[in-house]
């Protein structure tokens, strides 16, 4: 009996990766001050993709100076409508080069091409389009009697899970608000930000308006501590976020932090279960679980626990894991062996704590960093797998009996970034959503994003919002009407 086969169907657009990259500072490509470089690697093959400049404090200095110069010389005097035109141009260039950017992102990050093609790149373009529209309408971001002013130089540090998209989340509102920016991409995923710098150069963005310094935590720490920046926007781990907040305490510059999460995805017995299974799968296995808002704690009503577990076990067998460039791949590579080690360590702790581990039976590729779609049952609320962010394709399943118990369990975390609620009753989803301490609550869906919709956390998931008007305000200063620009 013939069954349907999906043979490998690789996206063949060339990514055009150069052998080496410098920093992008003041519109020019420059090596690190000490000439040091490091390799960025394709996590699906362990092969080196390019050598990249290893940023130093001196490089950060130089980038901040270039951004300051561009702010004073080109960007601040520019009319808002002209500023918008540049941002629209960048948005269009991202759309036009979407295929190439998707391949580049997949090579450097390991994520499946269908996600970089259908999510990361279109969302990045959408953010530029959205904030371009704000550039000459900033007055509407202010309360009556107050006028908006740019802050100056923004220091932005972004993570490796959505490298281009997280860069877009920072760059688009920063530029629209009239700031210039120094961006440090993650150590393991610098290439798409560097390609974005090329795109900005081709769009004739004035030199120094966008600067990219690549490197590890040394460059990041230097940028976060730099006295010449006027705002810090950070997305990444709670641990690093805390150290930035400590380092900048008392310095009176605005900070936004978008940190980790351990989101509860709550499924009631009256939910449309076929839909809920898809939502659970999307919630935890999207982007290999490298998602700060991943629905990593599944809370199911006790009466449907066994059915959900049986259905989920069957569903993950249909997920295709492997070559991220294959258009049929659902689960790509873990971003790095360091992250894979962390996932494996936490999974081992779950097994040692007595939880039961279930995984898809597919064979993993014999090279590269891969981890199967998997979940734990029999999870106790005190286990590390119920409390710590695994940041991988591993779900922890717990049960509840009543709505109030679900709310209590959902909120019993130090995080508060996102949550999901699955029920067929509108009144119940509104009741539960209103009591969840999470920045975003998805009802009968998960991982829905739009540039106009604010996103951000409570508690140790950070503060400040990205997207929409609340995502624009942190890049502005509001002063009473008539206050001089420089005040």
């Amino acid at each position, binding site marked *: *009996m*013939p*069954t*349907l*086969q*999906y*043979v490998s*169907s690789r996206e063949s657009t060339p990514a055009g990766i150069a052998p080496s990259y410098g920093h992008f500072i003041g519109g020019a490509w420059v090596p690190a001050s000490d000439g040091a470089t490091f390799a960025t690697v394709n996590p699906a093959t362990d092969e080196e993709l390019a050598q990249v400049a290893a940023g130093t404090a001196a490089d950060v200095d130089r980038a901040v100076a270039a951004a300051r110069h561009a702010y004073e010389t080109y960007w601040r005097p520019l009319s808002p409508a002209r500023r918008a035109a540049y941002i629209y141009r960048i948005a269009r260039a991202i759309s036009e080069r979407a295929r190439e950017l998707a391949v580049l992102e997949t090579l450097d990050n390991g994520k499946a091409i*269908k996600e970089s093609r*259908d999510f990361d790149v279109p969302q990045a373009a959408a953010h530029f389009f959205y904030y371009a529209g704000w550039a000459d309408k900033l007055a509407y971001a202010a309360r009556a009697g107050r006028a908006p002013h740019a802050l100056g130089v923004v220091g932005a540090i972004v993570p490796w899970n959505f490298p281009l998209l997280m860069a877009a989340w920072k760059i688009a509102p920063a530029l629209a608000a009239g700031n210039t920016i120094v961006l440090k991409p993650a150590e393991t995923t610098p290439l798409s930000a560097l390609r974005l710098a090329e795109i900005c150069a081709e769009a004739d963005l004035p030199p120094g308006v966008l600067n990219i310094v690549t490197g590890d935590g040394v460059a990041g720490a230097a940028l976060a501590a730099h006295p010449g920046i006027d705002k810090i926007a950070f997305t990444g781990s709670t641990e690093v976020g805390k150290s930035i907040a400590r380092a900048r305490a008392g310095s009176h510059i605005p900070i936004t932090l978008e940190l980790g999460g351990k989101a509860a995805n709550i499924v009631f017995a*009256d*939910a*449309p*279960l*076929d*839909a*809920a299974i*898809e*939502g659970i799968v999307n919630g935890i296995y999207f982007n290999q679980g490298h998602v700060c808002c991943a629905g990593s704690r599944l809370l199911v009503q006790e009466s449907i626990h066994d059915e959900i577990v049986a259905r989920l076990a069957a569903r993950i067998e*249909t997920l295709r894991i492997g070559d991220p460039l294959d*258009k*049929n791949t659902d689960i790509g590579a873990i971003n790095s062996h360091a992250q894979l080690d962390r996932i494996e360590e936490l999974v081992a702790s779950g097994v040692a704590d007595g939880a039961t581990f279930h995984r898809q039976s597919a064979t993993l590729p014999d090279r590269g960093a891969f981890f199967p779609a998997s979940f734990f049952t029999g999870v106790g609320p005190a286990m590390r797998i119920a409390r710590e962010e695994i940041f991988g394709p591993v779900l922890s399943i717990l049960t509840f009996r009543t709505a109030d118990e679900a709310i209590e369990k959902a909120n019993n975390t130090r995080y508060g970034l996102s949550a999901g609620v699955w029920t*067929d009753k509108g009144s119940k989803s509104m009741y539960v959503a209103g009591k969840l301490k999470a920045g975003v609550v998805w009802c*009968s*869906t998960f991982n829905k994003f739009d540039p106009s919709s604010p996103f951000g956390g409570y508690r140790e998931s950070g503060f400040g919002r990205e997207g929409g008007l609340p995502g624009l305000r942190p890049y502005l200063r509001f002063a009473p009407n008539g206050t001089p620009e420089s005040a």
Partner: protein
Amino acid sequence: MLAQSPVVDAVMLESRAADFAKRSIKREAKRAAIDLAIRCIDLTTLEGKDSPGRVRSLCAKARNPAPGAPAVAAVCVYPNLVAVAKDALAGSGVKVASVATAFPSGLSSLDVKLRDTEAALVAGADEIDMVIDRGAFLAGDEATVFAEVAAVKKLCGAVHVKAILEAGELGSYDAVRRASDIALDAGADTIKTSTGKIGISSTLPIALAMCESLRAFYRRTGERRGFKAAGGIRTTKSAFAYLVLIDETLGGEWLDPDLFRIGASSLLDDLLLQREKERTGRYTSPDAIGKD
């Protein structure tokens, strides 16, 4: 009959259904999938102007669509033409399916519907494509819908019964799910999306809602029942989306003419065109394919 059917969420249903169209099926997988799709076709003609000559021509195409290509699963005609089709397909293994029960509206007395079915059976139909009474369903009279499907199945005995839900008239995915559950519980061997006679025929979300019902039925009873998508499937690419949907929702066991059919007419020509392209490496003229 189940007292209640599970609820369906339209947003997630449509989003999941859209995933199926994104699978990329190329090279040897494409060649195999084209032949699989051909083997699952119910080659259909249901027009007022259908004549014995037209049906004989269609049957010749059904037996031998193109040199080297497999035969289709069945030919689907009105009851009056079953005998002609039966004769033209003798010895081929291609089945004869007949629409019945006051197709396409289903708005007649049960007695007339059963006589209609009986005429098709007497003429030698191997399969009966009946329509459910949507008027009764939408009026809340689920018992009538159930009873009519059960009565037709009883009359047909071992003959395969496909219950056409005409999903495009039911108004919601919840209703599609409910009608699927009722038809299966009443004994339909296959549930079928549509008559092909109204604007909205088969769509991927409708098919998914119906396959979720089949999946639940299998879980509940251990019995595999069939699915037929009909209407609006004209291209190889859209047929492939259904194969993927079946494979990922019900499993590979369902990718068999006993459990999966596509009711179509022009689809076969596109499949043959693509088959020729895979064989020769280039597209041929549509006129190089023998029309039915």
